[in-house]
């Protein structure tokens, strides 16, 4: 089969094609089939198409939910040498590497993590070349203006831009097309079984890229590792990430990477929707408040470090608390220091009333607040730096921004763990190929994005890094998958 040429019409708005019917999907042998429709999948599809392959992308969700968790993202973290219109300063590779090593237990696989960090430098240029536009960061963005690059219109706009680029370049996209099975012959994936218009079809290709996300929406799977606590988790993103393809890959002998309990989770408002609440339900009050559990007791240092460095650890901490709930309590001195919570904040004239309104034991909470207030050492309060306001002789301490809770009205909000995505996934090698349990690799099966994030992340998270993983590995997987297809002609 001759090397396919693709058409590109730069700058003209795309005429979007009707989604393919079953006949179109099944009738031909594709060069590359991509499983998924988020950032990693779209990046892989575009990269494979750029390399000249015929590409089919199978997005499981209906078109208004296409794009997986990418819809809720806002920025990407990449190495860059100098300040520019969208980043206020340089972000060298060494600093990025130090930041990555400083979260959780550090990277799982140092070599693969190092590659991710180094390769990120060329990602913004690649994204711009495929139509992505950027914007300067606005308020409420965790002080990421130097290290992270914000795309115009957020993740949904990013997804839309990539879909337009995909249509323009000739990638064939099917939505509402879940993959229910993969067909293997030894170390080769021969085909996938995909549902198109509700009926299963066998789709064959020379190479496959799995970019179908984590399994965070599968409460049953989470329960295997977390027990009944998982029933109290809020899933921040798409309800379609139930790990179907991941389970199939495991069944076919794919090796595991990442920790069973590894995930990126934050503290979200307990009133958030069970699925798909996105960024708006995040709470930023914690450093300027005290946090108690359902028993009215503090359990962690609310002011341990600057919020951007700590926000990703609170999901896990709240998950460990009884009932997976925690409560952030502050007084009127802290009003205006953080983005107002999306839902109404509980307000009361006294700590006891606040506790009762939040269904906590008022005596326990008053005792905790009294102990805390007594331990506060006066200092000069400065929310922008690690200031001198701390507690003395209190366990757990509050190391910074500690002020007495003494000025009514008092406010509080109930929180739950919000899971963004799970890290446990398939093991890959340096070519993005999925590695088998016996250490050999599948010759034509690649993975990118959340489904292989466990190769990089152990626990803990760095803001904007999920997209870095998806873009770096998606680009690699798509390019090499096209190469496999070309070589197999």
């Amino acid at each position, binding site marked *: 089969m001759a090397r396919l040429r693709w058409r590109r019409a730069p700058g003209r*708005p*795309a*005429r979007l094609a009707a989604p393919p019917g079953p006949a179109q999907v099944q009738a031909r042998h594709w060069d590359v089939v991509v499983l998924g429709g988020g950032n990693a999948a779209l990046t892989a599809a575009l990269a494979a198409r750029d390399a000249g392959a015929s590409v089919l992308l199978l997005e499981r969700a209906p078109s208004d939910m296409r794009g997986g968790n990418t819809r809720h993202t806002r920025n990407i973290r990449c190495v860059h040498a100098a300040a520019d219109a969208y980043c206020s300063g340089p972000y060298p590779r060494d600093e990025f590497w130090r930041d990555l090593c400083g979260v959780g237990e550090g990277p799982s696989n140092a070599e693969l993590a190092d590659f991710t960090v180094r390769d990120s430098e060329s990602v913004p240029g690649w994204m711009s070349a495929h139509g992505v536009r950027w914007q300067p960061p606005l308020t409420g963005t965790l002080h990421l203006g130097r290290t992270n690059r914000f795309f115009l*219109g*957020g993740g*949904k706009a990013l997804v839309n*831009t990539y879909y*337009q680029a995909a249509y323009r370049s000739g990638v064939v996209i099917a939505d509402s097309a879940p993959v229910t099975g993969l067909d293997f012959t030894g170390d080769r994936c021969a085909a996938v079984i995909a549902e198109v218009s509700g009926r299963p079809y066998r789709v064959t290709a020379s190479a496959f890229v799995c970019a179908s996300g984590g399994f965070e929406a599968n409460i049953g799977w989470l329960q295997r590792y977390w027990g009944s606590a998982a029933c109290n988790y809020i899933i921040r993103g798409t309800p379609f990430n139930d790990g179907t393809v991941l389970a199939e890959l495991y069944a076919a002998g794919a090796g595991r990477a990442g920790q069973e309990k590894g995930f990126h989770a934050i503290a979200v408002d307990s009133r958030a*929707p069970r699925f*798909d609440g996105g960024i708006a339900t995040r709470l930023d009050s914690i450093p300027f408040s005290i946090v108690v559990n359902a028993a009215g007791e503090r359990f962690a240092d609310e002011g341990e470090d600057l919020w951007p460095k700590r926000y990703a650890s609170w999901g896990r901490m709240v998950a460990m608390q009884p009932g997976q709930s925690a409560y952030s309590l502050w007084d009127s001195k802290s009003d205006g220091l953080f983005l107002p919570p999306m839902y109404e904040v509980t307000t009361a004239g006294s700590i006891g009333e606040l506790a009762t309104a939040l269904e906590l034991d008022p005596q326990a909470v008053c005792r905790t607040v009294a102990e805390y207030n007594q331990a506060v050492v006066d200092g000069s309060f400065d929310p922008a730096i690690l200031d001198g306001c701390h507690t003395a002789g209190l366990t757990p301490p509050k190391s910074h921004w500690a002020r007495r809770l003494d000025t009514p009205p008092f406010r509080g909000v109930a929180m739950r763990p919000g899971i963004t995505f799970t890290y446990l996934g398939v093991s890959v090698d340096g070519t993005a190929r999925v590695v088998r349990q016996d250490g050999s690799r599948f010759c034509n099966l690649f993975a990118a994005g959340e489904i292989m994030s466990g190769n990089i992340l152990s626990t803990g998270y760095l803001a904007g890094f999920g997209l870095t993983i998806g873009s770096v590995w998606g680009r690699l997987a798509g390019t090499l998958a096209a190469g496999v297809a070309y070589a197999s002609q």
Partner: protein
Amino acid sequence: MYTPPHEFAINLPPVLSAARVATSSDYVRVPCGRRAMGGWRGAFATLAVSLAAVAAVALVTGGPRQLLASRGTARSPYAIIPYPALLALLAVPTVFALAGMVRAAIRYWRDAVPAASAVKPAVIWRAATAAASLRYLKGGGEECYYPSDEAPSGARRHLHALLFGGLLLCLASTVSAAALQDLAGTMPPYPILSVPVLAGSAGGIGLAAGCCGLLWLKVRSSALTSFAEATAKDYGLLTALLFLAVSGLAVLLTRSTSAFGVVFLVHLAAVVMCFLAAPYSKLTHAVFRFLALVQHEAEVSHRQLDSRGA
């Protein structure tokens, strides 16, 4: 990601449309009651009144024979209605429209701009260029998702420019005709290759093309992102302007025929109607949006001065 069908259902465009409709009704007082004068009924009523007034003046001043006579060469509009009567007839709706817009502008300005001191000529200029180029309707550079939800397009911006340019050319045509008549002493009808006729023709074609294009886009746009009352007013204005442009071009085309009289009266009625309806139509968006742009540019320049420590 929060747009419908997400449960948060954040849908900004119709909210902003509703806010604009509310602004218009807050700052423009309607004399005869909104319900009676609203919608197509009000538009046709105004058109009927205009036609009647125009026809009455024509019959009284010139008579039916002048109206239907044909000369074989281009005729002057003053043969249908003499100049003083025409001036008097058009002065009423023009003054009415201008007064209504100015009054609305003053009331809006008082509420919207507390610090008028920040408004300098440079600020006005920036606002004017922003209005002319629709600078803030470019979606941050990638254009807006209109009419398609799938891909962005600059079509609405370009068609609006065509429409606005056409309107300006029609204004230029009237002004140049007045200049030719009052300063140079040349009376209409003007030859084809004259400023009034060329400007008016180009203006009419541009206006008609812009209206047709915008109507076409609107028909294809998504109902989810529109606010019903605003959409109705949009359709009303575009149809009225299209009628104005087409009737004007028809005047040019029939000026040597016996139909000239009637066609001219129809066009005149369209002009009168447009002016009478202007303060209550979507045409007021020009006023409110421009003032909002002035306020925005004033705020921006004020912030820049602040940050420079001036």
